[in-house]
């Protein structure tokens, strides 16, 4: 190992660095260890939460149905907590430290507080799991009052949130240090800016969580008599939905980062990409209203304005990223010499590199499945048809599993050689992992959305209503959808399991990475074919990007079509006024 550990005394504070063999940049050892710790715990909880998810999918498969209702509701609660909160936020902490200390070539602010944050989050996560498994807290991830969980359920989430909040402050502190110590010039890199957006949304999220969970905890202990049910839901979703908007910003940052690392992709326009991120800062969190569209007590004005992220300005932000990310890739590939036809740049992209494959699948699946379904589901009136049906988990498995989780996995394939300094063990197996997981996740999303369109309720242990006084049967196609969902769940579990095993074994037994093998350790990269590149086009700023135009036109057509199909269905409903 080329750990040329160097002690730099900057501003009177000692920090240990090593030199990265790939870039020659300094890497703060404290940041490196914190990234490792947060990423490892994230992946452990992904494994646990994923296993719970598999049990949920198998129970919903009518022919298999392995859990009885009590256990189903318990496992579903644990699944939601472990993957929506614990896996995602632990990994985001790793992303925040990476995007600040590593990318800015700077020491991490207050590593001790970062470790305290880590320990609080770990204690919270373990306590939450123990409390749920004890069986008195099967209240679902959302814990809508007046459903009451054991007090430790709320306490564990508060402890976790406080830890995560400290992590956000460490990130902000590191930005201040980098600026003071001039480790960068001008503006922070776009990826770090994206991480900043994630951090800002996280602070709003965690503050909202504290505002609602502390009184609920006191209520569960008997100190507060009453919590208003709609008020609870309003504030809870400022946390619950915004926490998924942290993912949004983090994964977009990763979508910019991976093509930059592998292909040297450059943002088409810093201004446009940063303005798109500004739309996230301002309006993304308003979409918490998506969960309040059929609640009594809130006006249509509030619903329409908030559900539309202020006239869809945050959606505009996403659509801009959806153009500039493939556009940046196309421009870079064309500069690398892949100039033939419309799609050579994409055909000759490093599809055998799991970091690239994961990133690109994540982008496409998020956009087509998660993005479009999210806007449709969040349309005030259309929500009447879809609220609390399986369409909702279908939608957010497209965003959080096929989108965020896959993006995080893709980044992990680069974090292992760069930060853990290990080669990926079994590269040929790793090559297939994103495809397996992506297909599984896409299947889960599509089949659950299908079942939801047929009216199937979410969070439901028995859709055949075998113990109900009054009988009811969903259409037979719904059962087929849930069977297919079970199969897709198995596929995703294999893909997810493979990821966990590959990463754990790579970290433990992978070949050490140093200057001699760092480039190969990052996986296959596009070869430069520079000879004929220079002449065909001018500089990258004036590139013509026909492939990207076709991609976004396809996306837009699918969006418009699906949007109107749903209005058509809505118009056939009983009249409501």
């Amino acid at each position, binding site marked *: 190992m080329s750990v040329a550990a160097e002690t730099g005394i900057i501003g009177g504070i000692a920090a240990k660095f090593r030199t990265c063999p790939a870039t020659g940049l300094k890497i703060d050892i404290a940041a490196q260890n914190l990234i490792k710790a947060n990423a490892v715990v994230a992946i452990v909880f992904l494994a646990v939460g994923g296993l719970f998810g598999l049990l949920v999918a198998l129970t919903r498969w009518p022919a298999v149905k392995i859990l009885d209702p009590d256990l189903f509701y318990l496992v579903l609660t644990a699944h939601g907590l472990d993957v929506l909160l614990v896996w995602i936020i632990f990994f985001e902490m790793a992303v925040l430290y990476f995007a600040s200390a590593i990318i800015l070539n700077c020491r991490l602010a207050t590593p001790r507080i970062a470790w305290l944050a880590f320990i609080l989050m770990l204690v919270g996560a373990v306590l939450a799991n123990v409390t749920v498994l004890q069986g008195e807290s099967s209240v679902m991830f959302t814990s809508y009052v007046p459903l009451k969980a054991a007090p430790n359920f709320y306490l564990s989430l508060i402890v976790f949130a406080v830890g995560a909040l400290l992590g956000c402050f460490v990130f902000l502190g590191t930005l201040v240090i980098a600026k003071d110590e001039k480790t960068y010039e001008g503006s922070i890199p776009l990826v770090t800016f994206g991480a900043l957006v994630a951090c800002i949304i996280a602070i709003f999220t965690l503050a909202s969580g504290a505002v609602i969970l502390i009184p609920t905890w006191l209520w569960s202990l008997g100190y507060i008599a009453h919590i208003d049910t709609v008020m609870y839901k309003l504030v809870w979703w400022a946390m619950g939905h915004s926490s998924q908007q942290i993912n949004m910003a983090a994964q977009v940052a990763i979508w910019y980062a991976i093509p930059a690392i592998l292909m040297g992709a450059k943002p088409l326009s810093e201004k446009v990409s940063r303005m798109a991120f500004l739309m996230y800062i301002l309006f993304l969190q308003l979409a918490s209203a998506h969960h309040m569209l059929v609640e*009594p007590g809130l006006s249509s004005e509030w619903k329409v304005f908030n559900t539309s992220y202020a006239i869809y300005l945050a959606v505009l932000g996403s659509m801009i990223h959806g153009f500039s990310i493939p556009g940046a890739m196309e421009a870079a590939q064309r500069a690398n010499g892949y100039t033939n036809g419309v799609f050579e740049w994409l055909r000759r992209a490093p599809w055998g590199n799991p970091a690239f494959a994961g990133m690109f699948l994540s982008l496409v699946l998020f956009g087509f499945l998660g993005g479009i379904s999210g806007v449709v589901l969040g349309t005030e009136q259309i929500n009447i048809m879809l609220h609390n049906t399986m369409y909702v988990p279908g939608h957010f498995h497209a965003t959080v599993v096929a989108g965020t989780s896959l993006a995080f996995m893709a980044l992990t394939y680069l974090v292992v050689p760069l930060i853990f300094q290990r080669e990926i063990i079994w590269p040929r197996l790793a090559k297939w992992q994103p495809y397996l997981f992506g297909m599984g996740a896409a299947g889960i999303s599509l089949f659950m959305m299908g079942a939801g369109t047929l009216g199937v309720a979410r969070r439901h242990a028995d859709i055949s209503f075998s113990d109900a*006084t009054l009988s009811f049967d*969903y259409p037979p196609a719904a059962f087929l959808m849930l069977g297919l969902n079970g199969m897709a769940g198995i596929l995703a579990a294999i893909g997810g399991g493979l990821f966990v095993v590959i990463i754990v074994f790579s970290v433990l037994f992978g070949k050490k990475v140093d200057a001699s093998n760092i480039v190969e350790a990052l996986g296959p990269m596009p070869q430069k074919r520079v000879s004929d590149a220079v002449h065909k086009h001018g500089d990258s700023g004036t590139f013509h990007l026909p492939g990207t135009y076709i991609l976004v036109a396809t996306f837009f057509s699918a969006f418009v079509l699906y949007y109107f199909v749903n209005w058509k269905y809505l118009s056939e409903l009983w009249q409501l*006024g």
Partner: protein
Amino acid sequence: MAITSPENKLWWTEKVGRAELVWITIAFLWGVFMFAMMVWWHLEGNQNLSNEVYRVVPETFEEKTVAFTEKYTVREEADIPVVKPDPGSDIYMLSRLWEWWPILELKKGQTYRLHLSSMDWQHGFSLQPVNINIQVHPGLEHVVTLTPTQSGEFSVVCNEFCGVGHHTMVGRIHVID
């Protein structure tokens, strides 16, 4: 690159490509259109959720529902009263662990003011196979104006998790011609 600081420190004044500007314009206009669509549907559409809501004590709502049920009961189905209210009137359905009560018999094409509330936890009014879904809260009386446009037997499934009996909670609405 996206992982390094912008080379041009004055990146704000860089020119934006024409294709990108075209795309931003299309995306912005599409957003305005989708926003206008929701507003327009409030004016011209027939499927909008009513905003008529009152705070109510659960016992009061139960009394009103019982009085309504006693007045209009025509028969029983699985020991649950079936209620046939006057067309165009105020009708009540309460939710509690784990039932929707009473059963309603409505006339197709008539408009009713359906009062919904919960006696205990939150429930989800999910009318099947029509697929109308409305959240029901304890302490809030939501008055939904409803016009059945099909006849037949319809079920009300609970689609908000409400404890261990959640998956047995089914109610009924009949619509006659």
